[in-house]
Each structure stands twice: as C-alpha cells, then as structure tokens.
C-alpha cells in the first residue's frame, strides 16, 4: 500500500480508534470466520490422520498382499509359499473386529507371527522381547500386547486381564506387553500371536491375508503359485478401496467445513461493509479535500489488511481451542462406529494454519474490495449524504436481484449439467448459496412494501420502514444469517431424507420375524447344518431364507456377495429399480444376479449386462437380472441364488437364517427358537426390530457431529447479527436521541430495535428455507449419488422448516437485546450534542 500518505493513514487509524466498537466487531467477524474453518479443518484432519496411522500400522512395510476372494486365505498356502525356495519376505496376518467387555467402541484384534514380522513391523518383535519371554508370548493362549496409548485409554497395567468378545463368544486375555513405542499399535489395536488370534477367531485353517514385500522380479515368482481363490494386490491400491472412515462421514465433515467457510466469508464481508458504510461522511470529506479515489481505495484495503492480520492470528488461537473440542466429539463418534481415535490425535500442521490465515486475509480483502471500490467511486458530494447512499442501495436492488438469480442458475447448472465428481457438486452448491445471499437484501424493501400495507401504527410502522432505510447495514447481516440458516435447514432436510429412506428400506428388508446368526452378523462363521433343518421343521415357521455372505474384489473394491435362497416374503422386501424382464426373480433363480444401485452406478451395469466375478474355479460371467435400492454399502452389494453360488464356490455354509412365522405367531416363534435351538447351538437370534433399532442408532450417531456443527454455524451467524445490530445502533445513537427527544419512551426505542431485528430474522429465515431446500436437493440428488451411488426419495418434513423460522426469529431477538438495552440507556441531550 505504498503511496498512502501518513496523514491519511493516521486519519484511518484515528477513525478506528474512535470507533473501537466497530473495529472490534469487524475483528470478531474475521476471528470467528477463521476460527470455525480452522476448527472444522482440524477435527477433519485428526479423523483422517488417525485412520491413516491405523492403516499404516496395519500395513507396515508391506508392498503387496495376498487376499482371498472370500475374504480369507488358506493357511496352507502360506506354508506352501514359505517352504518354497527364494520366497520373498512374507507375513501371515489375522485381523478381526472385536469388542472389549466394559468399554465402548470396537477394536482390531491383530494376529502376527513374530518371526515373520521383522521385515514388516520391526518394532513388534523388540517390544515383545522387552516385556515378556518369547515362550510366554507363543505358548500362552491369552497373551496380548497393546501400546502405551491403548493402555492409558483402557486404564490397563501390565498383567491386567481383559475380556474381549467376538462372534458372541468371550475370551480372557492378559496384557503381557505394553509398548512405549506407539507405532507398535495405535489405540485401537490389540496384538496377539497368530495362533491366539486363530483360536479366538475360529480361523483354524485360514488367514485374513498374507503381507508381502515385493519388487518387480518377485511378482513373476508368484506365477503359477497362487490358486484361483486368492489374488495378489498392491497394498496402496487396496488401501484406497478399503472401507475405513466411512465416506458418508467424511462427506458430512467436508460439507460442514465448506459451509463454515461460507459463513466465515460472509461475516468478514459484513464487518468490513459496516466499517466503510459508516465512514462515508469522513470519506466524503476526504474526497472533498482532494484525496484521490486511489488513495481512499488503498486506505480501506490497508485497514482491512491490518484487521485481517490481527483477526486471523486471534482466529487461529481460538480455532485451535475450538478444534480440540470438535476433535473430541468427532473422535468419540468415530471411535464408536469405526475404530479408536484419540482426541489428542489433532495435529496442527503449518499448511492447516496457512489455509486458515489465507482465508482470513484473502477473505477480508475480497470482502472489502467491493465496499472499498464503492467508497472510492462515489462522488464527494453524494458521499456526504446518507440518504443518497440508501437511495443508491435501493436502486441497486434490481442489480442484486439479477446477479443473485444468475448465480443461483449458474450454481444449479454447475451442479446438474457439469458431469463431474463431488467437487463440482459442492462448487455449484457454493455458487447457489452465494446467489441466494445476494438476493436476500432484496427481501428487506420487499417486506417493507408488504408490511407497510398492514394497518400497523407507531413503532411497528417505524420498524418496517427502517427495513428500507437501513438497507446498507441490515442487508449483509440478513444475508449472513440467511446463509447460516440455509445451511442448517439444508443439512437437516438431507439428514431427514436419508434417515427416512434408510428407515423405510430397513423395514422393507427386515421383514422376517426372526434372524438367526452364528456369528452376530459377522464374517467367518457359519450355522450348523443340523440347526437349519430343525428350524425348517419348527411348527410355527411358514417360510425361511438362507444367506451366505462373502467379500469379492470387484473393480478393486471389496464388495459383498450375498448368496441367498430367498423366500417369497424376503423377495418382497426388495425395491427393484430396474429389471431385465418383468419377472426378475425367475432370472435370479436361473443364475442371474441382483445388484445394488451403488454397484450399478459404480460399474455402469444395467439389467441384461453381465458382470465377471472371481470364483474359486476362475472368472465367471453372471447376467444382471435387476437393480435394487440399497443403502448398506457405497461399494455395492450383489445377491446370487444360493444353489448357483454353491455350484461355483463349493461352499455349503450358511451364516444367517431369516424365519417367517405363520401369521400372528411371531412371538411364539421366538419362544420356540429359544427353547429348541438356542441352548443346543451357539447361535444368536435377533428380532428384526432389534436389528432395525441398532442400525438406526448407528445412523444417528454418524450424524451427531452434524448437530454440533449446525449449532456452531448458527452461533457464528448470531454473532454476525449481533455485530450488525450493534453497529447500526451505534451509528443511530443520534437518531434514537432525537426519537427520545420527540417523546418516544425508553421501552419504545427498545421495542423498535427488537422489532427491526425480529423482522430481519424472520426475513432471513424465509429466504433461507427455499435456499436450504435447494441445497438439500443438491446434497441428496447430486452429491450423494456421486459419492455413494445411491438415490433416495427427497422428503421434506415440516419440522425443520418451522424450526428454521423459529431459529431465525430467536437468534435475531437475542442479538437485539443488548443493542436495545444500550439504545434506551442514558439521556438524549448529551447524545444529541455529540458528533
């Protein structure tokens, strides 16, 4: 900003000093914007970093991995490779998700062979050596190693016992090793000898996978050595396909972070506009004194820069503090649903801070550019006139309206027309909201015109007229509140839509009376065949369906193949979106497959197309009989008739059984099963209702963080309105003094301010509702489809809409309390003399 005279700078500085409140509010705007974006970014980063750390520990130095088409690798294959000459470094691994009795969340039980681990996870052998004898580690069926951080989190000491449960069975383990070296295992890893893990998981002849360290020559070594039932995959490629952090959860956080950014930029714009708008008198005088446009332009940008730097620094500090709180919430949610995350996983990288500071400074400069430009452009005489300003604002209404509409259309076009990923979807959404924000100030004079026709008197009429008179101040505040409210309602509608779609889908799907599983619905264990026959012959059973679930790599993603013999009522639970023929189920019986919508979208398959599946006997093409609605996995699922599956896979196992009782006998069916089957077989039986409840609870927990972020963005918007109203009130002190002098009581002045604010809040909410609906529509129909491959009916419940209206009103009223109190305080006389 060279070329600015010191005198001019001092004028600017003195102005800020005299209007400390305004400077402070501008700072608050910048600070909050920076803080929220930084906090969400930090929480997001912590979640991802935790996941990356976890998977790095799982992977170690491995470059490749042998995985089974059905999720398991025969242990005999490892022996055969290990005893072959010139074999590359390899290590057998067993991994299972387990629960620890008395602790929430899930943990990874990892079985390693300490002798094979040296090349892969070198810390492990030395950790075991340091703490226990190799003999105990290998021989004891209860030996367990955990990291120091896991020990701290679980409150365990050396030699303490813990009970883990897997597939409905409990196992007592004793902590023999606590490693100081956290890279041995993060908080969610329980490490045992491979024999122990085999015994616990019941995988006596199987491994989860074999880790390998390979160079290009070694790849050729495997030619002819691997059976068709396994695949050699690149660890890096596989990691990309592994479900780790649920994509839904990540999308959720990303969306929220973007909205925080949007609200942040608005706050800054809001604050800077005020500081300039209010100074139009001063600026007009300066222009009249011969200060050039360029100089004014630079002066304002220089001020903005200084505010931006200070605000960004404070914002960073506040953001880190806020980030810790958010990280704790995110960590708690992820820990419950996916894997243990430490709330101290938050890492403040220079890039994260840089982004936040860049947003603060860049956002402030961008937000100040328009006001600075306008301040510089207005001729000296009109600059002096406040009325002229408001007049010009009113004249700008068509421009705002037009620009806003263009942006809304551009946003929709970007979202729907541009073929692309999630990024273009979000970009379009962003533009759409910007457009809506531009339109928001238009609502104020519109409201004035409408309300003016109502037979209102006194303070009420004054308040409606102020809508137009103070357009320049209130317009941006309304826009900021609108963005926050729109975000709230948009996300709420999206979550509601998702929730009710998932709920309907689950209820259709879970239409049996009772489900029986050997394993608590986990991989790897099957039902005793005798039990299935007995269940079939139970007197109250009218029909039953059998399921066998395996994982197949399809297009590099582990995809569920469910081999199922489906009874008629089970078939009715499917919502078939597209079918090859009218009778897709007969196609299914003839060896066709039913693929889920996400799988169809991922692979581009339509009914009648064929999908190549890796079977133990080699690759086989299967015809797609139909596409069904499914929200179980974004990687997709497919159903194949059980008898066809058995033919190709030579696997007679069944893991889940669905029982339908004769009508009205659901209750007695349950009783019969518990009397006749549950005691003699190690099976779990669950009513559909219980599965439904558990699934919905998981859904709700996934979106708990959303609630927090919504509250946060409302808080930010609230501060925005507060600062706008404060600024207006400060500027209008003289006006209020005049009003008091001509006979308005204190409470009438207070009422005036509160009324203005309430109207503002309601107007913002009214614009926010359609905007939020459009946003929810984009989120549901575009972004979800692109992210997960599923579609869902777009459902708008009245609840969130009313809530938004109420929220806008309450937020605005609350924000007006202090300014109202301030304005009514003190004597009018000195205030009239001032200025």
């Amino acid at each position, binding site marked *: 900003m060279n070329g600015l005279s010191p005198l001019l700078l001092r004028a600017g500085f003195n102005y800020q000093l005299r209007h400390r409140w305004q400077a402070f509010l501008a700072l608050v705007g910048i600070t909050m914007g920076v803080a929220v974006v930084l906090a969400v970014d930090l929480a997001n980063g912590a979640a991802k970093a935790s996941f990356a750390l976890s998977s790095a520990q799982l992977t170690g130095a491995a470059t490749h991995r042998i995985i089974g088409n059905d999720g398991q690798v025969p242990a005999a294959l490892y022996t055969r490779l290990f005893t072959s*000459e*010139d074999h590359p470094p390899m290590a057998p691994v067993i991994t299972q998700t387990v629960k620890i009795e008395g602790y929430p969340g899930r943990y990874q039980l990892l079985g390693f062979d300490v*002798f094979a681990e040296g090349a892969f996870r070198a810390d492990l052998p030395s950790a075991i050596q340091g703490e226990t004898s190799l003999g105990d580690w290998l021989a004891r069926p209860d030996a367990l190693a955990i990291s120091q951080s896991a020990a701290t989190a679980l409150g365990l000491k050396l030699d303490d016992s813990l009970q883990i449960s897997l597939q409905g069975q409990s196992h007592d383990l004793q902590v023999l090793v606590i490693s100081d070296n956290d890279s041995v295992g993060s908080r969610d890893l329980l490490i045992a000898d491979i024999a122990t893990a085999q015994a616990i998981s019941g995988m006596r002849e199987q491994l989860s996978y074999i880790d390998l360290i390979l160079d290009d020559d070694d790849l050729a070594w495997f030619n002819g050595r691997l059976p068709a039932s396994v695949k050699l995959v690149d660890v890096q490629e596989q990691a990309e396909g592994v479900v780790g952090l649920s994509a839904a959860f990540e999308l959720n956080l990303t969306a929220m972070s973007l909205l925080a950014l949007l609200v942040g930029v608005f706050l800054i714009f809001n604050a800077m506009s005020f500081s300039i708008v209010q100074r139009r008198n001063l600026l007009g005088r300066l222009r009249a004194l011969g200060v050039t446009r360029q100089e004014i332009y630079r002066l304002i940008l220089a001020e903005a820069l200084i505010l931006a730097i200070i605000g960004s620094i404070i914002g960073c500090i506040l953001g880190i503090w806020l980030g810790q709180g958010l990280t704790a919430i995110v960590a708690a949610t992820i820990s419950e649903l996916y894997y243990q995350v430490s709330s101290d996983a938050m890492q403040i990288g220079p890039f994260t801070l840089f982004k936040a500071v860049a947003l603060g400074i860049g956002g402030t400069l961008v937000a100040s550019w328009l006001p600075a430009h306008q301040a510089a452009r207005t001729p000296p005489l009109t600059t002096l006139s406040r009325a002229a300003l408001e007049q010009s604002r009113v004249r700008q209404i068509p421009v705002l309206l037009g620009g806003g509409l263009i942006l809304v259309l551009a946003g929709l076009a970007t979202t729907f027309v541009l073929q692309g990923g999630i990024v273009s979807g979000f970009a379009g959404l962003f533009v759409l909201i910007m457009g809506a924000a531009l339109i928001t100030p238009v609502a104020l004079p519109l409201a004035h015109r409408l309300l003016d026709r109502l037979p209102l008197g006194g303070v009420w009429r004054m308040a409606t007229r102020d809508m137009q008179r103070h357009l320049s101040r209130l317009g941006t505040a309304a826009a900021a509140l609108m963005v926050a409210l729109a975000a709230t309602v948009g996300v709420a509608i999206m979550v509601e839509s998702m929730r009710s779609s998932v709920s309907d889908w689950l209820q259709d799907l879970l239409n049996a009376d009772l489900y029986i599983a050997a394993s608590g619905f986990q991989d790897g264990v099957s039902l005793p065949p005798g039990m299935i026959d007995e269940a079939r012959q139970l007197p109250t059973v009218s029909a039953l369906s059998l399921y066998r679930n395996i994982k197949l790599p399809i297009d590099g993603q582990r995809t569920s193949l469910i081999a199922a013999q489906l009874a008629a009522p089970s078939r009715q639970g499917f919502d078939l979106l597209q079918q090859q023929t009218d009778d897709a189920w007969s196609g299914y019986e003839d060896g066709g497959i039913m693929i889920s919508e996400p799988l169809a979208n991922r692979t581009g398959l339509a009914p009648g197309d064929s999908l190549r599946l890796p079977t133990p006997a080699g690759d086989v093409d299967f015809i797609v009989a139909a596409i069904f609605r499914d929200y179980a996995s974004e990687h997709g699922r497919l159903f194949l008739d059980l008898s066809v599956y058995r033919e190709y896979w030579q696997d007679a196992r069944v893991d889940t059984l669905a029982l339908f009782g004769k009508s009205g006998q659901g209750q007695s069916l349950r009783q019969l099963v518990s009397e006749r089957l549950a005691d003699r077989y190690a099976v779990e039986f669950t009513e559909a209702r219980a599965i439904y409840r558990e699934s919905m609870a998981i859904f709700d927990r996934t979106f708990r963080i959303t609630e927090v972020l919504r509250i946060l963005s409302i808080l930010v918007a609230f501060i925005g309105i507060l600062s706008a109203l404060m600024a207006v009130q400060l500027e209008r002190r003289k006006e209020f003094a005049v009003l008091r002098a001509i006979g308005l009581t204190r409470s009438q002045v207070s009422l005036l301010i509160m009324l203005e604010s309430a109207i503002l809040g309601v107007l913002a909410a009214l614009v926010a509702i359609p905007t939020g609906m459009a946003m929810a529509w984009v989120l549901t129909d575009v972004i979800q489809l692109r992210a997960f491959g599923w579609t869902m009916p777009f459902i708008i419940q009245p609840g969130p809409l009313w809530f938004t209206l109420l929220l806008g009103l309450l937020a605005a009223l609350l924000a007006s309390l202090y300014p109202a109190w301030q304005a009514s305080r003190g004597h009018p006389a000195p205030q009239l003399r001032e200025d």
Partner: protein
Amino acid sequence: MKRILLLLSFYLLAGCGANEPGPAQQTALTVSSTMGGTVDPGFARALTPREFVFPADHGAHPEYATEWWYFTGNLSSDRGEAFGYQLTLFRVGLKPGSADADSNWRSHQLYMGHLALSAIDRQQHLSEERFSRAAAGLAGADNNPLRVWLGPWSINGSEDNIFPLTLQAATDRFGIELSVEAGSKPPVLQGDRGLSQKSAAAGNASYYYSYTRLPTSGSIRLQDRVIKVEGNSWFDREWSSSALAADQAGWDWFSLQLDSGQDLMFYQMRGKDGQPQIYSKGVLVDREGRVEPLSLDNTRLSVTDTWTSASGTRYPIGWQMRIPRHAIDIEIQAAFADQEMAHTVRYWEGAVKVDGSHRGLGYLELSGYSDN
C-alpha cells in the same frame, strides 16, 4: 559340539553384538531373551550316558531345550576353486511340554537356521539367518526318513540309514544343494559315551555325536552362477538342556580333516578370565574310525594371528596346535579373515587350512569374543 553353548549364550551376547540391529536382528534378539540364564526345570537334562538308537536319535528330542543338526565342509570345483559351507538348523524349546491344541500354529518349538558360504579364492563370505515356529508345516523335524526343515531350507535323509543325505538351502544371493554320503567312519560318540560335560554343574552336559568325514558332492550357487563341487562334510548332532556356567565366556572349536585320513575335533572352553578350562575336550579319529580322547593335558593351543572385524571384535583366526603324544604340531589358519557370522549372535565360523606336521582342511568356530 560347543554349539549348544552358542545358543545358550544368547542371553550373554544379547544387545552387545549387533551395532545396527536391522529387523532380522531385532527378531533374533527376541530369541535371545528366551534363553534366560536358567533352563526351565520342565526340560529333561543330560545326566547320564544314554544308549543311542539310530535312526530314531537322528530325529528331534523335544524333551530337551536345545538341539541342532550342524553341517560344515570344505568343497572344491573341478576348476580347483575352494569353498567352505555351513548349514545349521537349531531347534529351541521355548517351553517344556506340548503346546495347546487351540490352533495348529501354536508351538513351543522354534527353529533357527544359519547358512553360510565362503568363496575362498575371492575371499567372499555370505551368510543368512532365518527363524520360524515349528508349526503349520513351516519348520520341524520328521524321523525316518529324517527330514529337518525351516521354510525352504532342509536336511533330508534316506530311510533306515540316513545316508545319503540331501542338504538344500538358498537365499537370493547364494545357495547349496549337496548330497552327503556315509563315508567309511562310524559316528563318534563324544565325551563319555556320547555324554559331553560342559561345566561342573550336573546336567550342564549334552548328548553329542559326530560324523567326521562325509564325502559330499553337488552344487553351490553364487549369485546366478551354479558351480559343481565335491569335498568332505562334518556333521554334528547335539541336544541338551544345558547353560553356560557363570564363569564361562565362550569357546574355540576346531573340526579338522587331515590329509593323513585322521580327523581331529577339539573345543577349548574359555573362562571369563580368558583361560582354557578343564572342560575343554576333543577326539582324534584315525583312518579306520578308532577314537582317541583329547584333553587339555595333552593338547596345547596358542594364538598366532588375530583379525578385527568391522564391528571391532577381535578374533583369533590363526592357531598353533600341538599334541605331542600323537606327534601333531600344526598351524591352523583361516582360509581368509572375514568369515564372521553377524546375526543374532555375532561369532566367527569359517573354513581353515592346516599346515605343519599334518596338512588338511577344516572349520573353526570362535564364540564369546564380541561380548565386551
């Protein structure tokens, strides 16, 4: 022979040997921690001489804590290039008794393998170590026909009489594939009818027998070059639940095949004071396989040459041995200096040449020097 002590000394050497422990060393150090000072009383001990029954005793004796099948030999190609080799499979009982049957990967037995090849003409020594649990077919020992294996490394015997034996072991850099014939000499029972006392404490002894000269032929691989070779091997079998005495530091072990047709084994137990102890013993085997015991009384050893390895360990690689009673006065010199085995335990084991009153070839093992 002393090799039993090699294992048992792990705990003494742990942490002092390797300067830059790589992953393999770290794994190996784990092994050393298992060798703790005392032997689990649940293991059987070698207290009295036993009746050796073959071929049964060629197989594993899991009731004892440690055991090995130890092959060394000097070989030459038809172009006259000289090579030395070592293939040893060690069995370590981590706990007495049989393992839980909860998983077929569960085992109380660990196998460790050492493979080395000395290309004498180019003074190149290559070696590798590997480990595995004795479970799931990864490693173990079968009897009659003898099969001891650790991953792809294996010692395969023939039915009834174990000979001819096949040795197969390779790494990506080198390997051996050898057929070992019976030769003309019967096995030599070391010590008192095969009971070899290592220190004063009862049970600090091993069962120990040797085949001192086994005609060997086959091929070795050096990088991508496969070389046909012939020569003689020495095969030691030993098992025990023994430990080094507190005052013992290590040993110097000689296995020499003399051109005269005699074979000579001698091990010198060294105290921590550096002095030879009375438990030092040996045998002289004549052309017909008759055995004369050797002891400190009639065998004199002195160091004539030393070599310091990169890790700073000083090894006596040149010796003079005098056995006046048998008119033996020989110089024993390493075929080349750097034949250090820098693995879990750092020791020196390599081919030697014999000169003086008798000429011949042999192997020398030096342990307990890196323990500083």
